[in-house]
């Protein structure tokens, strides 16, 4: 820099500016603080609706579910958060195990069938997400789509299937398989899948993009990613290149996991429970069905177009509460060489 004085002035100016901005920061003290592991794009509109209809202000912090769980565990009983909104049952289980959640009242819990909430009453499911096979008809044997996820280890699907083994959604699916079919059969499935040339992707999104672009024939993902892709490319979900296929009812491949919510012990007053109650009400549940394309947990809400009813889907006969123990699954994925 030819003129150090000008540079110094610029730096000083930037600092003063930053100070001024920093001092005007800071949330509303009376507002309810929500830690959301669910994306701002997906939940912000309904949270704003909550404030509009109840007058309760929210301070929402958005982040990654697993990293937020780590943050909550680090904060412990000094957490500024009142409510934790999480992507999956596993994260809620981890926070619950450390004793950071308070019990929810039965009036709230009873809105959701027992299958989709915590036995210890510490969290409740808000929406359901089904595991599906996405496939590109130009590259996948679309006339012989599998009834069971176990068929994917066969020669028909050699080098054609993508998975995201480091993603929580895939790990929940493997945990479910271990619960339903035992460790030996699950280990064999994973080993065979690997031997069958399974492709590794970092997350569901990458799988859907690659199936859409014909870079891979098919992949195991959560159903709503296909609806998001359909929205982004502006093509109907049953017409876009990345199609959606549900496995047969009762197959572990069609596991339905939940996103859910829990109230932290650090919260005071009734507002936090009011939020949980609101999110299980007709308005919010309809919003989720229409905008995030997930299964509503409250009964009697119409589904997004192209979605089979939740009870016809009949996920595997397992207890979702047991999905919080991922340690065995992680060990198995490492052992097989998939994570």
């Amino acid at each position: 820099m030819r003129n150090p004085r000008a540079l110094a002035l610029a730096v000083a100016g930037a600092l003063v500016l930053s100070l001024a901005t920093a001092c005007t920061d800071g949330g509303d003290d009376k507002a309810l603080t929500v830690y959301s592991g669910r994306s701002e794009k997906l939940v912000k509109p309904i949270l704003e609706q909550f404030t509009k209809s109840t007058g309760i202000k929210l301070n929402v912090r958005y982040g990654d579910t697993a990293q937020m769980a780590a943050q909550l565990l680090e904060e412990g009983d000094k957490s500024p958060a009142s409510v934790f909104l999480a992507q999956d049952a596993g994260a809620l289980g981890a926070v619950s195990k450390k004793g950071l959640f308070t019990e929810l009242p039965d009036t709230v819990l009873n809105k959701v069938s027992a299958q989709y909430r915590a036995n210890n009453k510490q969290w409740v499911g808000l929406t359901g997400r089904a595991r599906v096979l996405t496939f590109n008809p130009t590259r996948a044997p679309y006339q012989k789509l599998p009834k069971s996820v176990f068929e994917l280890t066969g020669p028909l699907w050699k080098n054609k299937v993508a998975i995201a083994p480091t993603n929580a959604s895939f790990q929940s699916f493997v945990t479910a398989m271990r619960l339903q079919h035992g460790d030996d059969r699950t280990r064999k499935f994973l080993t065979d899948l690997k031997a069958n040339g399974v492709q590794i992707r970092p997350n569901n999104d990458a799988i859907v993009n690659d199936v859409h672009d014909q870079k891979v024939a098919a992949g195991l993902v959560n159903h709503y990613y296909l609806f998001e892709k359909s929205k982004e490319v502006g093509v109907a979900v049953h017409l876009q290149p990345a199609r959606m296929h549900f496995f047969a009812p009762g197959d572990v491949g069609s596991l339905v996991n939940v996103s859910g919510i829990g109230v932290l012990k650090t919260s005071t007053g009734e507002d936090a429970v009011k939020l949980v109650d609101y999110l299980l009400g007709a308005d919010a549940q309809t919003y989720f069905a229409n905008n995030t394309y997930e299964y509503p947990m409250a009964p009697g809400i119409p589904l997004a177009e192209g979605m089979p009813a939740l009870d016809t889907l009949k996920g595997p006969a397992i207890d979702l509460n047991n999905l919080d123990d991922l340690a065995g699954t992680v060990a198995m994925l490492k052992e097989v060489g998939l994570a």
Partner: protein
Amino acid sequence: MAPRPALLLASTAAVAVGVLPLLYLAVRAHDAGWERILDEIATARTLTLSLRSVALAGVVTAASVVAGLTAAYLVTRTDLPGRRAFGVLAALPLAVPTYVAAFAWTSTIDGFAGFWAAALVLTLACYPYVYLPVAAALAGADPAAEEVARSLGRGPWQVFVGVTLRLARPALAAGALLVALYVFSDFGAVSLLRVDTFTRAIFTAFSLGFDSTGALVLSTVLVALTALLVGGELATRARGARYARLAGSARPQTRIRLGRWRWSALAASAALAALALGVPAFSLLRWSVAGVSRPGTIAEIGQAAGASLAVAAAGAGLTVLLALPVGLLSARAPGVVATVLDRITYLAHALPGLVIGLSLVYFGINVAYPLYQTVWLLALAYATLFLPLAVGSIASAAGQSPPRLEEVARSLGRGPWAVLRTVTLPLTLPGVGAAAALVFLAGMKELPATLLLRPTGMDTLATQLWTQTAVSAYAAAAPYAALLVALSAIPTWVLAARTGVLERGAA
């Protein structure tokens, strides 16, 4: 000369900030117990991951040294056509976050993934860390040494190896160290390009079974690797090798004529710019055109930009304040103490942002609760992460200004603070500016620690980019990415200008 005890005290305080994450790791490792630590660390996987991280760092560092040195040589020592433009272009990749670059490459080329893909993307992102200090060293060096060598009949290649390279060596080593440490800490590129490095394993461990203890124990291995590397760089330093830029010797460099190599050099420079800048630019354009998602209002984008600028500026300001005493100490009172303090600031530099973030969550909750989830704690996180970037620039600027001037001022009766204010600081100012620009840039691009520590409800360009891409809304993400790169280009230009490559000189 500033009072040594005060300088030492201030330096120690600054270094303590850099050590915060290490204390946190120590606490967590202690909680875990030796059995658990051995369980996590003493595995074949740890060895594989370490080797892969070291190999990636090695390849990227070597390639960055070649690219950075070549670019610096071409713009400062040759008659390369358009060398002033290339002088700035060569620094600009610093403005592109690795997660944006990696995504641009994977979405442009089918099956672009793996070790060599990551090595390419990281090299293109990191070589400016070598280019900038080397270009500054070459542009500022006294031309006499090279002229003498030439007059004694040495050819251009012999002059380059025997003289130029030696002049550039301290800058080269410092830049290479930053590149290697960056590669250790990077998560964006390796996760998108699917290379299992140590940092990726640490991030994965947080989601795998929500096991933060395992992740933190793994992080201690990264600190150990960093310590080895930092010690190694120290060992390569020639004793007392300092090349002062003396006042009055600032003459234009003699430029060699490239002759028939002129056009190949031009093509190579253009290719480097096209790969490092063209690919991301092309990809951003494609995002905007292909998708139907739309970003927020102009006001929202403006707010995010304002927040990015504010937190990056606060981080840069705090970091420079902390780095100043450490830099002055290593320049004015070199010795074992200064060296140790300086090196300690590097130890946390290779830790992933997520770990730094969690350590400051711990610090905020248990020690500085009023600061928790304010801009200040985030600024402190940036200081912890980027202290070495600032210390290096300040130390080299202070090292190039002759201590005599301060001694003269003292002998004329000025007090130590007056000398600091009227002599030392003005002389160090260019280095302070460069330090602020480097930290500012790094802060703009930082994501994991920002997500954990930002005030609730505050969005920066980086967090917005993350929010949009998390739901596949690439068209909505594009303006945030473009603005992030565009705003980062300003401090990058300042950095490039500071090297002196923009100055008109004799051909």
